[in-house]
């Protein structure tokens, strides 16, 4: 029997496997940030251990970094102390760091691919659940805890029980206004937040093939929100085109050898998955969440579900609790719901294509009175590119704030956050209670939808703005 992409990458990284024990899995790329690493470095120090492979380790600062200019001076006391600690740890252990002020600084899951460090067939880990993003390249990439960060620093290995492969097949051509974000919200809405527990998702089908690498990263990024260990997409020409010429991509003969290896990665035709879910991509609509986990997602034109008709993975009391927190009425439309804040950013949707999509809606329009709109690029490189394209001017002229790179309002531990009771439309990945600030209420959606909501000041179907003569925003690959 053939192998799936996941099985091939897994098998190639098993260092040792004793019967009844978890596998020792080798890690090709270990990404580090300031929040989940300090205790791991303290652990190394306490045991007198070093970092086994510094060249396979890359650090950035993103979670606690201020997105206002000013670097460390703009961070609060504990945030600045945490950033300084990462700097000290990287210096002491010899790890490459793209800290505040570096032209390569940015969100860990944005810069890994951007620098060409993330490559097909690799194992990639980071003390961050959205490490699943890197699976867009056909890498096996997953989030780990701080104890495991210490394990990887010391041994370049992890103890892992093998998950099962789960195929998510999405065929069909996406309709205008429907993006990668809508695909993944539709999936999680279908399977619930635990539907992928114990599995590695592999996204297949023509709708996935039709996405560019940024869209594929958006899809893989939120695999964890469906409970999956990781999400993967088989590498193809789009993958290779994205990687060619990037700073750490192989060159010359090494590139040709790499291509040969990468082309052998996709799942065999007779490979078997433990589970399969299929979605008709051509039937998808722009999606939005209404509740307090990403599984509480609906087509934007649909009514808010009633507790009697609770979706997958949600029982009646859970849904009632969520609607109470959100201040929403079951059975009512979400369209027209007034909002206070729009956030375009995060490791899910802060790449150049996301910014272009938001700008395509905002160009020549104004953010509604009373709505605060934050546009936060995922990296300094993206910030420079957006500015070279004049996107920053589009955002500023529309009345939005244009910020420095970072996690910003997705995690609300860096100064950017909602006030209690505020409603936000956010391109980030989590609508958990208080995620964007205590008492804050989050609707997750695509950059197109977020921009449309910024213009009207209420939950809006972006297709109504596309129809009135505005240039159709670019969606997916040309």
């Amino acid at each position, binding site marked *: 029997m053939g192998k799936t992409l996941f099985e091939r990458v897994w098998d190639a990284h098993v*260092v*040792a496997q004793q019967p*009844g*024990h978890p596998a*020792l899995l*080798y890690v090709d790329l270990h990404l580090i940030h300031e*929040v*989940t690493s*300090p*205790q791991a470095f*303290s*652990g190394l120090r306490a045991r007198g251990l070093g970092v*086994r492979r510094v060249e396979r380790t890359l650090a950035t600062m993103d*979670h*606690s970094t201020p997105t206002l200019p000013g670097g460390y001076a703009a961070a*609060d006391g*504990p*945030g600045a*102390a*945490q950033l300084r*600690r990462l700097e000290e740890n990287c210096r002491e252990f010899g790890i490459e760091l793209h800290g505040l002020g570096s032209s390569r600084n940015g969100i860990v899951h944005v810069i890994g691919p951007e620098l060409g460090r993330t490559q097909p067939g690799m194992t990639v880990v980071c*003390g*961050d*659940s959205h490490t699943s993003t890197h699976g867009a390249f056909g890498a096996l990439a997953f*989030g*780990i*805890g*701080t*104890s*495991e960060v210490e*394990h990887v620093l*010391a*041994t*370049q*290995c992890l*103890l892992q029980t093998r998950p099962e492969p789960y195929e998510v097949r999405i065929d069909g051509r996406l309709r205008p206004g429907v993006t990668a974000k809508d695909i993944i919200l539709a999936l999680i809405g279908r399977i619930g*937040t*635990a539907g992928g*527990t*114990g599995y590695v998702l592999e996204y297949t089908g023509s709708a996935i093939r039709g996405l560019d690498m940024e869209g594929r990263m958006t899809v893989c990024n939120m695999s*964890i*929100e469906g*409970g999956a*260990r990781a999400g993967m997409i088989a590498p193809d020409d789009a993958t290779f085109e994205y990687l060619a010429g990037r700073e750490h991509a192989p060159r010359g003969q090494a590139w040709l050898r790499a291509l040969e290896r990468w082309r052998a990665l996709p799942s065999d035709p007779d490979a078997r998955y433990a589970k399969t879910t299929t979605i008709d991509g051509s039937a998808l609509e722009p999606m939005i969440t209404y509740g307090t*986990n990403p*599984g509480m997602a609906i087509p934007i034109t649909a009514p808010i579900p009633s507790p009697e008709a609770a979706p997958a*993975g*949600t*029982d009646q*009391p*859970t849904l009632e*609790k969520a609607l109470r927190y959100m201040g929403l009425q079951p059975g009512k439309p979400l369209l027209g719901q007034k909002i206070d804040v729009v956030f375009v950013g995060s490791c899910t949707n802060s790449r150049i294509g996301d910014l272009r999509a938001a700008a395509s809606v905002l160009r020549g329009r104004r953010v509604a009175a009373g709505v605060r709109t934050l546009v936060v690029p995922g990296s300094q490189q993206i910030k420079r590119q957006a500015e070279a394209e004049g996107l920053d001017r589009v955002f500023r002229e529309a009345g939005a704030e244009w910020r420095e790179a970072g996690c910003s309002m997705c*995690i609300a*531990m860096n100064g950017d956050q909602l006030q209690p009771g505020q409603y936000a439309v956010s391109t980030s990945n*989590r609508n*958990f*209670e*208080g*995620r964007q600030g*205590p008492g804050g209420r989050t609707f997750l959606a695509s950059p197109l939808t977020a921009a449309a909501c910024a213009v009207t000041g209420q939950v809006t179907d972006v297709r109504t703005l596309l129809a009135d003569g505005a240039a159709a925003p670019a969606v997916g690959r040309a």
Partner: protein
Amino acid sequence: MAQFITLTARAVVLAVDNVDTDQIIPARFLKVTDKAGLGGALFCDWRKDPAFVLNQPAAQGAQILVAGDNFGCGSSREHAPWALIAGGFRAVISTSFADIFHNNALKNGLLPVVVTPALHRELVAQLGREPELQLTVDLEAQQLSWPGGAATQFPIDPFARDGLLRGIDQLDYLLGHAEQIAAFEARQQA
């Protein structure tokens, strides 16, 4: 790592499904550089409600949390088990756990106990009648029991169980494979 052999303690029921790690410890408490002192941050936002279960006198001294389905979903923050331990908990009983939380808990001597929905319902009902009930989680026998109830087996990965019973750290196990790791690296370079 703290050893876990057997625990007899009172339990508190948190009857909510899909409790994410942002609720267990909100992100604003993650600006720390050590593991200690996170007890005050545990369920900090939910604790603002006087009616919240952990604010009730009956919750004081409870070392077992009986939680809803898919406990610990979301962020990979190991601060979640650190905060639960600092808050006095040694075991969490649920019908299912999110993967990363499950791994993180085991590495810190916080025992995730998976039970069937039927047993979970029975346990919640029993604790509703008798909040002072002492549960026993016996890792050696892999049994959950309480006075007047039948002992029930619970599953756990044998490798993790062995580590918890002996209080040994997985890092020691990994470091013991230095030769195999070096050989793997040599093969990968070739």
